[in-house]
């Protein structure tokens, strides 16, 4: 388990570096930590090491901004958990990555806009994560690779009390967590 974690982190760090080289100016924390190549306890209690392993996945790199996997938010209509046709391909790409990388995992964070009752909005966010989970599993992702949490209206992506903000807040975020 720990060994897998180390490998995974190494993969993630490499991926981030790859992202830096194409983007140029990405100053993400993981990118900087990786440059130092130190064997220390990183924030959050995970242990990093200098081991280099390219991993086993083929196809997309998680942190290549040109890859569809760099898009990790999908949006929903009011009071709806229907995934738009345009997002099906995106979810299929994430599913393909997860299915071929059994050590990878995601948390699906479900959100709602601020209108209406808070706990009902938790329900809406949950239903959105379940809709995404079903699509991922249809494409071969193992159930244990997917965790869900609904924040309802508690963590808006956009502040403001109007349609433009609400549209950005009705969403599911795909967060890669590793295992």
């Amino acid at each position, binding site marked *: 388990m720990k060994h897998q974690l180390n490998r995974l982190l190494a993969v993630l760090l490499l991926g981030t570096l790859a992202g830096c080289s194409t983007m140029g100016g990405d100053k993400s924390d993981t990118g900087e930590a990786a440059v130092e190549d130190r064997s220390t306890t990183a924030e959050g209690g995970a242990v990093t090491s200098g081991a280099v392993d390219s991993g086993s996945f083929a196809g997309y790199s998680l942190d290549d901004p040109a890859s569809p996997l760099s898009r990790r938010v999908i949006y929903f209509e009011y*009071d709806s958990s229907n995934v738009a046709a345009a997002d099906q391909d995106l979810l299929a790409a994430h599913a393909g990555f997860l299915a071929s990388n059994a050590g990878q995992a995601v948390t699906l964070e479900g959100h709602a806009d*601020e*209108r*209406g*009752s*808070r*706990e*009902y909005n*938790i*329900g*809406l966010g*949950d*239903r959105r994560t*379940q809709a995404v989970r079903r699509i991922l599993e249809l494409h071969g992702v193992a159930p244990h690779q997917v*965790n*869900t*949490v*609904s*924040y*309802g209206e*508690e*963590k808006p992506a956009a*502040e403001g*009390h109007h349609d433009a903000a609400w549209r950005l807040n009705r969403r599911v975020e795909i967060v890669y967590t590793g295992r």
Partner: protein
Amino acid sequence: MRMIFRAVLLYLTIGAGVAQAALTIEITQGMEGAMPIAVVPFGWTGNAASAPENIAAIISSDLSRSGRFEPLPDRDLVAHPTEAGQVQFHNWRMLNVDNLVIGQVTETGAGRYTIQFQLFDVFRGKQLVGFSFPASHADLRRVAHHISDLIYKELTGEPGAFNTRIAYVTTATAGGEKSYTLLVADSDGYNPQTILRSDQPLMSPAWSSDGRRVAYVSFENKTAEIYTQDVASGARRKLASFQGINGAPAWSPDGRRLALTLSRDGNPEIYTMDLDSLAVKRLTSNAAIDTEPAWSPDGSSLVFTSDRGGSPQLYRVSASGGQAQRLTFDGKYNAGADFSPDGRKLAMVHAEGGAYRIAVLDLDTGVLRVLTDGQLDESPSFSPNGSMIIYATGTGNREVLAAVSVDGRFRQRLSLQAGNVREPAWSPFEAN
């Protein structure tokens, strides 16, 4: 005659700490026919130049916040009697006040006081109620609220809810970091006490029926979990941490069970949890969202929100489970119910024309009445005497609390000096 006035509460020192009004209460719509009353500043006998608390001001503020009374402004007080023998009833009759409150605070020892008060019927020239209370420094505000309760009960025939508390959640952003705080304050906004602070969302505070504990949802571990916490000691217990939703906690009236929403079986359903064994029992079974359980005051049934009919509406189910019965039919959105203490009304969030407002359903007649005029009103909670509903609303870009009388005629706003305040839960009457 429509009276609109502001009740501005001042900071007052109490005990070792500072009793600050976290929530400033502003009356935004007065009530026609509010009862005129004179509350005369209490007399003071003690070492200091003045009494440690202005008891009359606390009582006067309580009475005006109820919407049922219109206390005479201090400048209109024709006299300042502090004992019965000094009262000239004809002077007060000329001012058209129905009732008069006088009293005295006496220092009886180090930090010990006696508070005496009398309520008079001005037109009959007779005392209606009078009491004397011993109190420590820290008890003075509570005694003042208790006097307000006695006056309210005597003159309206209904119990007052001044000696109660409100739990609520505040959010603030500092240095780009958001923080969430769960607080408990007196019902006049004074004496706010933080019971939990987190950098992740806190939600859905709910009081136990004895008023000693609060259940809530915390995301402190990046997942929804339900805790209960003893308000006085701060001791807390994690009750629910299942996969998915752990939300919407509601104590049964007998305090032995918690109703809650879990999605561990695939989608949000209502469960009850036995607080001794922590065993859970599922009450609903439907592919829709079922959430926001509220116990009827007799504990026999629960009302909850479900979109099983296509839009969120309120349903009622027996506490032992079974078939649910739909209760709301007006509009496409009715959610987040709270029972009135007598079990005959439900407050809820009701949407019409894109505006989310607080409405009350009369369970006897089936009539739904919209009480508020905001755009994003939510989280209604009845006062324990059933006279007011506190709720969350927006003003400009800030979240504030507001309260409205059950008949919709009287309104007030409760706001923080900075930051947002939301999810008010009015405590039950204190267990004594």
